[in-house]
């Protein structure tokens, strides 16, 4: 368990901080569903 926590923390520290209000761009395709999906 100790080793797992250490790895998790290291990954957290490596993350690039996102600017406040950042919204990731939607995937280019497929597009939005206008009605419903069947």
């Amino acid at each position: 368990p100790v080793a797992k926590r250490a790895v998790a923390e290291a990954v957290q520290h490596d993350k690039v901080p996102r600017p406040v209000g950042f919204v990731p761009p939607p995937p280019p395709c497929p597009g939005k569903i206008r009605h419903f999906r069947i």
Partner: protein
Amino acid sequence: VPAAPPPAPLGCDDPEAEAAAEFAVNYINGHSRHGYKFALNRIDNVRVVSQGLNNDIMFLELDLLETTCHILSPTPLANCTVRSFTQHAVEGDCDVKLQKLNGKLSVLASKCHSHADSSEDLLQMCPDCPLLASLNNTEVLATVTAALNDHNSKSTEPYLRLLEIGRARIQYHPVHSVFVEFAVAATNCSLGEAKENVEGCQLLPEDQSNFGFCTASRLIRPSEDLSVDCQLYGHQVPHHMLPSLPEYSTGQDTS
């Protein structure tokens, strides 16, 4: 000729892709002779291949949904209602190839297939909902015949002939009912003339043609009952959209 720069990748929700999809859907509906108008549900994919300056080929993959407007209906697509999930929706999958030359779109090729939503999915959400039935089902045919006879026998308008059955649904529980929709055309006969020689009844000349649409429901069990509603469009249909008689839609293809 210098090579044109590669076009910027186009997203499915980009205005240019949406404009092309709208153009493609109008083309598909405008070239269909049977069934219902389809509305855009989603752009699945878009690919642009440059052919030179201001000359692109666009490949679109579209998801469409069936509306309640028959293809002969004069109602603009924007005013047509997409069929709800509980009406057993029908989806159309279309591949369209377009050219955009100097900003002007044209369709080079299109191929569509349609399929109904799965009955299992519908029954899971709505156990009592009627399910789509085959258009040549004997109960469906009997209901259409009864409905058209009922309308013609009560109407003072010209005798109506069946153009095609658009869709049919049958419900078995808690009551046994049949729901049908069919397109009709007015003829030059009165009811009396039709009774004498129905084969002699011809469609009215094109400039006077009246096309219409009927919905009917027939209760079979626990008791028999029939209700019919026919509305004539009362407009001129472009020649390329005139169906040939007698011809019945036996599938759900939009192509």
